[in-house]
């Protein structure tokens, strides 16, 4: 939602399918390709992939950008677990504002089949 809002502020029409790994630099966001690869590698389990992704970000954007990108990836790796483990619902106004976007991206299918099977 904030990505869309950021685009509206700047007058840019970002391709939100980048969030699902379906668009990289063509999303309209500068250096999207290297940043998305880094985000995936940072929360993944492949050290070699992360080493390469880190080097690519440093080459394209510098060390401070890498640290800030790592910070965002780290925080959302954590805060996602806060949200999921405490059962907080999406706010009604946010749900309404993002209904079309969520349907377009299939976000509502996240967490499907989460209830225990009946005995």
């Amino acid at each position: 939602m904030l990505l869309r809002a950021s685009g509206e502020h700047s007058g840019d029409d970002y391709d939100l399918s980048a969030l699902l790994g379906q668009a990289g630099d063509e999303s309209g966001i500068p250096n999207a390709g290297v940043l998305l690869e880094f985000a995936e590698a940072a929360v993944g389990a492949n050290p070699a992939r992360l080493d390469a992704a880190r080097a690519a970000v440093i080459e394209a954007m510098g060390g401070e950008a890498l640290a800030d990108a790592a910070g965002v990836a780290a925080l959302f790796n954590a805060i996602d677990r806060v949200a999921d483990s405490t059962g907080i619902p999406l706010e009604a106004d946010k749900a309404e504002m993002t209904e079309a976007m969520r349907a377009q991206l299939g976000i509502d299918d996240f967490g499907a089949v989460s209830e225990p099977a009946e005995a």
Partner: protein
Amino acid sequence: MSSLCFDSAPVPVRDDVAAALPNVWARIGEPGTWLTAAQRTAIAAEARNVAGCALCEQRKAAVSPYAVSGEHDHLGALPDVWVDIIHRVISDPGRLSERWFREVTSSGISPREYVELIGVVVSVVGVDTFCRGIGQDAPAIPQAQDGAPSPETPEQLNIELAWVPTLDPDHDGPLQREFYPGSAAHIRRALTLVPATARSFWEMANTLYLRGDQMRDFGTEFRAISHAQIEMIAGRVSALNQCLY
């Protein structure tokens, strides 16, 4: 003194991050609100132990994680229910359910202990992911300090919003003013059953991401990456974690 330090980091680390994360890390080794330091450090160690757990891998691959039974590969320092919470939160957070939450909090852990446990787990996730991201070795888990927990329960709790009770925003009190400045967004309410846990988490969050007032100030760039780049990374990670919120 914290076992986490960025003085020799492979890349420049902002001063606020270099100050905040060692504090967050050191607190794992201190007595908490409901948990002892020994329990907190054991939780941190178990959180790091989840990678490679065969049961977690089987559950992650299953259509329903609740259809797969078995025993986790664990370190043996915590009750089984606590181990299951840690392993599920680490390995498959997007498929946690209220029914599972009700079952675990009626069989060996209270909601307030649960919230504090979650706080320790996500502190490990945040710090370890950041260190891994910048290419620095993960810090040693702190030594557990002596001392008793310092119990604190907020007086005004709401039990309707989430699985866990949360600080009720419809009262005017010091805790509300601290945790809900300008907004009682649900994510800000999530850990408030244990104020010290919420406080430590937001110390980490405000430095690794953006403060609340910075998030929507699209006219100002506060980081070496832009608002759009920040939100793209955030969204991609959340999609990978299957986090609807």
